[in-house]
């Protein structure tokens, strides 16, 4: 009898200990721009998206106690890197999400690798994250500049836009965006009639636009970003570029930019994104919930990427029964991704998450029926074609 009681007690203690262990505390850091040019694109919306993912995963019921912290990196790599260090060293953050602005993302990539934690990037575009600087601790989730170039360049040529003229921001990023797109265009059988480089940052694009118009190219590619792109599009609208039969193709532009520009200026613009809120029932359902929490704003693809990334991360923790970087990263790469926003996909060895990309055209004001009704779908670029082939990135992880 005594023995039995003791055994029972031991078993009970063991079970309790097991239960206590099962309640894993996970801390997620959402690091992005909350005050500058990318605040609409990422900002608080990414925190909302992360919280929604935790809610939808029912983390609490599954023994995960997930906490979200957030901070503003002000688009400065040193600030981003020092926040990341502090989070990992002092605040017990297990994984960092979002991080728009390539320079900050690359810095966080390094810190994460050094501290052996996990970094899932949604907001930045640099292909270096899965190229020469790829890391066993990083996943690049939502998009990259290669996918945007591939989507917009390739799909436009297929649709008949086979002659291009580039307006390029004159610095490394602009050059590489132009180069990537020009390669895709040429490979698809199109030709590049000319390029012109504008100083960065620029404000007056009229002479560049006139040259682009005079080139009679069917597509004018905008290899610039942020304020430059917005200004170019505004001024192109004043010159009636799209009404004149030429297409304007934005190589790095988001729905939040279109929202800021308004349809009158942005109509006819062609662009590639990996998520659009009004694409199917699942994305509409998600976006409606998102909009309720964010004061009516629809999610950008970066927000959707944070949601999808957090969901997959939590799944991997559950499957790995650990929150250590090694096993969780292995599980994330092993398990196929599947969520209502991006559908089925996978994480490649180099850390690239792949999924379908979509080519959209911005509607004319009269075609838009409701707020945020901005895009019509032109083409779907299948996951297998959308991203840079695994062996072309120069990622050291791939050879091994």
């Amino acid at each position, binding site marked *: 009898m005594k023995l039995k009681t003791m055994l029972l007690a031991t078993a009970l203690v063991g079970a309790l200990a097991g239960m206590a262990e099962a309640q894993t505390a996970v801390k997620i850091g959402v690091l992005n721009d909350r005050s500058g040019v990318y605040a609409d694109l990422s900002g608080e919306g990414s925190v909302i998206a992360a919280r929604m993912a935790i809610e939808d995963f029912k983390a609490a019921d599954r023994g995960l106690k997930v906490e979200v912290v957030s901070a503003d990196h002000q688009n*400065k790599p040193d600030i981003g890197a020092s926040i990341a260090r502090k989070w990992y060293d002092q605040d017990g953050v297990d994984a960092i999400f979002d991080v728009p602005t390539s320079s900050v993302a690359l810095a966080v990539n*390094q810190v994460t690798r050094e501290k052996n934690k996990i970094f899932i990037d949604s907001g930045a575009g640099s292909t270096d994250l899965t190229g020469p600087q790829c890391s066993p601790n990083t996943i690049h989730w939502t998009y990259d500049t290669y996918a945007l170039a591939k989507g917009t360049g390739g799909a436009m040529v297929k649709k008949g836009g086979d002659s291009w003229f580039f307006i390029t921001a004159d610095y490394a990023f602009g050059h590489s965006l132009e180069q990537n797109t020009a390669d895709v265009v040429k490979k698809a059988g199109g030709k590049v009639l000319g390029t012109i480089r504008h100083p960065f940052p620029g404000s007056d694009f009229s002479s560049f636009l006139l040259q682009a118009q005079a080139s009679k190219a069917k597509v004018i590619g905008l290899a610039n970003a942020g304020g430059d792109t917005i200004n170019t599009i505004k001024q192109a609208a004043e010159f009636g570029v799209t009404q004149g039969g030429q297409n304007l193709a934005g190589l790095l532009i988001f729905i939040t930019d279109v929202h800021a520009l308004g349809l009158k200026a942005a109509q006819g613009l062609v662009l590639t994104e990996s998520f659009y809120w009004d694409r199917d029932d699942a994305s509409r359902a998600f976006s409606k919930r998102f909009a309720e929490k964010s004061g009516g704003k629809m999610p950008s693809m970066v927000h959707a990427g944070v949601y999808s990334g957090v969901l997959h991360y939590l799944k991997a923790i559950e499957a790995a029964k650990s929150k250590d970087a090694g096993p969780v990263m292995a599980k994330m790469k092993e398990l196929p991704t599947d969520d209502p926003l991006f559908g089925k996909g996978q994480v490649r060895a180099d850390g690239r998450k792949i999924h379908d990309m979509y080519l959209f055209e911005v509607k004319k004001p009269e075609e838009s029926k409701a707020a945020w009704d901005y895009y019509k779908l032109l083409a779907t670029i299948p996951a297998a074609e959308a991203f840079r082939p695994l062996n072309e990135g120069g990622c050291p992880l791939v050879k091994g």
Partner: protein
Amino acid sequence: MASVSERLSVGGARREVVETAAFHRAVFVWIAALLLVAPFVLYPVFLMKVLCFALFACAFNLLLGYGGLLSFGHAAYFGIASYVCAHAAKVWGLTPEVAILAGTATGGALGLVFGWLAIKRQGIYFAMITLALAQMVFFFSLQAKFTGGEDGIQAVPRGRLLGIVSIADDRVLYYIVAGIFLFGLLAIYRMIHSPFGQVLKAIRDNEPRAISLGYRANHYKLMVFVLSATLAGLAGATKAIVFQLASLTDVHWSMSGEVVLMTLVGGMGTVFGPIVGAAVIVTMQNYLAHLGAWVTVVQGAIFVVCVLLFREGIIGVLARKLRKPL
């Protein structure tokens, strides 16, 4: 700000100077003691950041507070030094101390060229020339191949000091940075209390009179400009090793503005003011990061309050209260 020693009679002044020197020695001992203990209380990486910016602000203050020259392009020396240091450590594989020296030397050399051009004009024109030259450095950094454009130079190895001691550990690196900082601070202290410093202050207060006394004002101005640029370079190069990156932030004009802000908040023309100013600004950037856009608003508000209520800065006010130059 007329220092206390200048106001008193000769005999009194002598005693005053000795007393002040003893007082300053005590402050230095306190600073050294604080630096020694700090990493056990606060996060070392944060402290290193404060020290880098404090040194930068002290270097800037040497020029503004003692030379009376408002440069609006100090980010150029800070930034170029951090690029050169990062490049030297990463691509050429130099040891950190050599890389830092290379960066510092570049900052100084750039200061020599820019200073030579800028001191030909005074006041607002001087500030505008330094700004314009700094903008050229910014565009050079944006375009040049070796700087990596807007991605900057990433993944700079911390390496081994003198090829022997690994400084990958934050605390080890901290003590090196603290040493560099103290060295810079002592160098500045020595400069402003030397005959050179006295002449500098004379030129600041009344340039025609200094010239009439036979001093070549432009030589002194160029000298202090180069010294300031060199020390700013030392700060920038050290920062590159600490954060293992060099980026456009460091050469951007807003960095030039930030260092002005730090110096004014702490106390322009005081030895220890810029340290306090840098600590205040960096602490705000770090610990208020979760407030998002409000960081810049708070920074602006503090600046306005500082200019309206205590123009001498935090340490300036403290020095007046204590009746001792700080």
